[in-house]
């Protein structure tokens, strides 16, 4: 029997626990910056500030939140924004990716130029769009404010009141400011989605397309019956990731519309900012934050399921 030296024992223990030491710093940072805030927010949403300090109020904050018209309005606005943003980005992104996947020259150059909006920050992207439609001074406002083109008195995007809704109080058709917000966010998200779809189109084996073509399918049929089914998981991932980013970004709204005019572009993340930091009602903001967190969680679990299905089918 060979005796195991204590030193060797220690070395073995260290080697076995190496993954733990490697991951530990990451875990600590994430606990502080991500996990603790979530727990704190959950606690905060059940409390209210009284003169004596914080006191437990149960689901009072949620009741108050759901009772405000600002919240119910923002649900409709958020749906309009998300649907407009996601549908527009996916359609244009798919078309662009499809064109870029053809064997032609300069695709690298096109992709690079297309990516410039993605490099800009949300604040700057919002400001660039605001500059274009600024009342009177914006370059496009010369066209938009022309009464001949937009009767009766021209269109001032940043101040126009919303059109009469078609379905009760659901904010559709969207107000000009909302259209501008959708365009701006689509502009910035498009490159990423294009790249995602392009990468997955390029992974489609040539033979499959080729055999489809031999069987007499035209390009549209190939897209519909061969390409889309194959890259479907990527499309779903792209949709989820677009929704997730749109649900969490307020930088664009900050410089573009600041939720206005009135509350026409007050989608849920902006409402959260406004309740938390403009009204300084942290309990109400915490309640809303949890609502948004639940939506996000559903999106992420959805993404995970889709990618897992993809892995299983490979």
């Amino acid at each position, binding site marked *: 029997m060979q005796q195991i030296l204590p030193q060797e024992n220690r070395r073995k223990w260290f080697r076995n626990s*190496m*993954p733990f030491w490697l991951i530990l*710093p990451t875990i600590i940072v994430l606990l502080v*910056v991500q996990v603790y805030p979530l727990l704190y927010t959950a606690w905060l949403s059940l409390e209210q500030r009284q003169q004596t300090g914080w006191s437990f109020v149960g689901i009072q904050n949620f009741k108050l939140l759901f009772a405000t018209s600002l919240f119910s309005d923002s649900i409709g606005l958020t749906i309009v924004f998300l649907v407009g943003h996601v549908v527009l980005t996916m359609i244009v992104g798919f078309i*662009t990716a499809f064109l870029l*996947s053809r*064997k*032609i020259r300069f695709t690298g150059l096109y992709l690079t130029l297309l990516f410039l909006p993605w490099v800009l920050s949300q604040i700057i992207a919002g400001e660039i769009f605001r500059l274009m439609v600024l009342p009177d001074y914006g370059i496009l406002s010369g066209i938009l404010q022309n009464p001949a083109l937009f009767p009766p008195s021209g269109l001032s995007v940043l101040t126009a009141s919303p059109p009469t809704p078609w379905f009760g109080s659901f904010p559709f058709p969207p107000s000009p400011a909302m259209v501008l917000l959708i365009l701006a966010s689509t502009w910035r998200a498009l490159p990423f989605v294009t790249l*995602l779809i392009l990468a997955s189109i390029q992974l489609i084996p040539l033979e499959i397309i080729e055999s489809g073509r031999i069987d007499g399918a035209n390009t549209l049929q190939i897209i519909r019956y061969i390409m889309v089914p194959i890259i479907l998981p990527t499309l779903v991932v792209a949709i989820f990731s677009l929704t997730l980013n749109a649900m969490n970004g307020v930088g664009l709204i900050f410089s573009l519309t600041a939720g206005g005019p009135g509350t026409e572009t007050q989608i849920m993340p902006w409402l959260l900012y406004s309740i938390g930091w403009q009204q300084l009602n942290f309990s109400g903001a915490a309640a809303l934050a*949890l609502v948004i967190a639940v939506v996000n969680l559903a999106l992420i679990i959805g993404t995970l399921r889709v990618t897992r299905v993809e892995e299983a089918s490979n």
Partner: protein
Amino acid sequence: MSKISSPFRHNNNHWLIHAALILIVFISMVPIILTVITSFKLQQDIERTPPVLLPCDTATQSFDLSACRWSLTGYQHVLNPAPAPKSLLGFKINGTLISVYLGNTILYATATSLLVVLLAVMSGYAFSRFRFRGHKALMTGILVITGVPLLTNLLALYQMGIIIRKSGLPYDDRVFIVIVYIGLFLPLSVWIAKGFFDAIPRDLEDAALIDGCSRLGALFRIIMPLTIPGMIAIFLLTFVNVWNEFLAGYLLIEKNNLKPVMFGLYNFLGENLINLQVIGAACILISLPIILLFLYFRRSFFIAMVEGSVKG
């Protein structure tokens, strides 16, 4: 991207595809082009109604190239240079956007990116090469964490900052914000790093181990050199993310002179409501460094983005 083959061989309509792509690229460039044009205008041309696209018209002609009134006043206003014979360039930049806020952002972005690369490589390696209890749960957990809305994080971190400041513990806005940035951008980087390690064959490492290399030796001599492209990609992605981040810097840093450049810009916008050329110039000056960075390293960015999203 050209070396990846296309699924389509028959291309009889090249020109149509080029035309469509040029149109899409042009439309997406329009906002940027307009901003560049605006940034070189004079105040008098900006205030005209109806607005003119190019400040090149004269009393008699609608367009005359020799009459164009371009100017650098917007850039001058942002930079606010003053002659300073002692300094290196012969002048000193007094605009706070550049002299105060830009430096802060460079500091935060560099520090955050370096630390994110370090932590992501460490945990990416562990996740890729070791199987241990809770492996899958931790990986999934790190991904799910990204679903916590940014504003939720900020709500708690804002209060945390206030409490630490009040308690008299050693506190520095700069350290605090860098830790926050690391926490925000680390999860995705861990996944990207794991993907890069997964792509390196294990045999390579095993061969080194058999040849008598220690585990750490194999990591530093064999694996690390191969992951340098991945590390560059993570660094760049984090750098751009921190550079462009607005809300955390705006809300969590107490002292105004420590806030990042996006706050400086936001502040600046409020001071120059109708000086559109100044706003345009500020946007361009602040975006220029990362645009150049992107143009130079675009392949790294593309790889990191595809890696991070498809795997995630």
